[in-house]
């Protein structure tokens, strides 16, 4: 995580993005800008295009049209996303269950001394990253991830994204499998990350917490952005109405 000053600057710029899957138009005319230190919640009903948009922003998928820029630099693909410091918490967490907590935290970013792994330093940094999130139940960073509970895995995935994100962090349902205490820890961590200058995009169905946490709420429907609003004064019912549309709500 960077300690850079939090002067407003665009960390993510999306212009004219569209994506088709065969005859299905999954995304169309997406324009979105996220500033450093801003938490943007991406909401929408099932099939609205949230996952497709997240996959494009994190580099897993490429758009058929339009452009993605991270901190002013064009981005297409996972290698670019890694180079530009985009941290991601995938909905399926993207962890390797046979590997240890440390190995997962550093997977693809291993610390080395020459050609050799610096396991000692990685273990120390892994402990520090976990402690930073205040998780008392994850003491042993050598444990295989397969032996962790669902909540512990989720926290690990968040810790990994936080560790490697330098400008932008994407979180797809980061609190889905967590208990109330861990939800609080993760939400606090997201706020801290934003306070450190990271732009945050959050996909969540937990609308009450989204309303408390997000600086902006962007709502997708039928593959396009239909609302971009501030959460102040909004209720869960207001958001739901925009998400599903008047015709479905009626």
């Amino acid at each position, binding site marked *: 995580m960077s300690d850079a000053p939090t002067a407003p600057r665009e960390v993510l710029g999306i212009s004219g993005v569209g994506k088709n899957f065969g005859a299905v138009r999954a995304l169309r005319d997406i324009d979105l800008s996220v500033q450093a230190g801003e938490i943007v919640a991406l909401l929408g009903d099932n099939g609205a295009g949230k996952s497709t948009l997240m996959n494009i922003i994190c580099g897993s998928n490429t758009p058929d049209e339009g452009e993605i820029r991270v901190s002013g630099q064009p981005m297409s693909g996972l290698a670019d996303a890694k180079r530009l410091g985009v941290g991601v918490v995938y909905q399926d967490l993207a962890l*390797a269950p046979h590997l240890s907590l440390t190995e997962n935290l550093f997977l*693809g970013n291993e610390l*080395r001394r020459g050609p*050799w792994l610096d396991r000692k330093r990685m273990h120390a940094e892994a402990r520090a990253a976990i402690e930073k999130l205040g998780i008392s139940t994850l003491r042993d960073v*050598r444990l295989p991830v397969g032996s962790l509970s669902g909540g512990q895995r989720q926290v690990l995935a968040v810790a990994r994204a936080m560790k490697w994100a330098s400008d932008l962090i994407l979180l797809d349902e980061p609190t889905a499998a967590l208990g109330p205490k861990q939800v609080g820890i993760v939400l606090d961590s997201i706020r801290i990350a934003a306070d450190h200058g990271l732009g945050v995009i959050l996909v969540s169905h937990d609308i009450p917490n989204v309303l408390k946490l997000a600086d902006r709420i962007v709502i997708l429907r039928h593959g396009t952005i239909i609302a971009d609003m501030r959460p102040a004064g909004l209720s869960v019912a207001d958001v739901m109405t925009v998400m599903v549309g008047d015709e479905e709500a009626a």
Partner: protein
Amino acid sequence: MTAAAPNASTSMGSAPALKHGVARVFGNRAVQIIAVEVVLIAVFQTLSPSGAFLSEANLRGILLTASQVLLLAAGQAVLMSAGQIDISQGAVLILSSVVSGQMMIAMGTSSPVGVVILVGLVVAIGTGAVLGAVNALFVGVVGINSLVTTLGMLSLATGIAQVATKGVNLVGIPAELAAGFGSATIGAFPVPTIVGLVILAVIWALYRYTAWGTHTLAMGSNFLAARRVGIKTLVNTIGIFVLSAGLAGLAGFIDLARYSTTNISGHTNDSMAAIAAALIGGTALTGGRINFLGVIVGAFLAIILQSGLVIINLSPFYQTIAIGAMLLVAVSLDRSSRNRRTT
């Protein structure tokens, strides 16, 4: 020599710690197999005429056979840890030995014998590597399952070897190859066995101390996750198939060195032996876990069984039954112990 996440270390008193340590040692797959092997050796030594099982000649034969099985099992274990499999190793071994042998015969006496042998070695490993790259491209680029791809290669390589030799094993391999390598020893150990063990140790060290091992295990544990964190999964897939087949090529060269001829019909089941050795040793067929010490003792288990059953004059049919039963018992024990740990 297990590459996977080690267990948690917790603070405890010396007596429970000792108990925990002992339980951990005896819970180790390799230690369990070594115990079985000690019992088998004792039984075969007792039953064999004049104690022939532990005779110098028999031990030497066991070690020489192990040199080839170790190379194949090492390559297979690496592939299995990445969630892949190669059932074409035996065929790659055969074709590599044929191409290498034909090259050495073609060079004849036109070059110094040392050069001829060196070229033969490079050609054997190179042939294996090329066939491995072909396997990898079908798996990584075309997207065909590795079992299906290598089943095709098994048939293809065997067929090419038979066409190239018209089904007749080669003669005319330089005699110096057997004298200087195939039959050579350092102390009591055959040189090919030492070569096999050194290569295995190098691969273990790379697995343990470089990111390559972690990335390979990650590919076997969760391929999509490995790709998402930026691991070059295609490059790594090509690398491990080339490694495995290159080792099969080296095993083919050892074949030439041991027998001074090819063995076109003698290696088609070698992949199965290698898979069995890796599985018995605790490497997971589904990926994410590898046990190098287990590979060594697993390879020796099958060879000890084979040699012992021959020496006590049991029909060869019983050998395959015994090895198959051993494999099923080992994998079942592994599964039940893992189930106990997760419930």
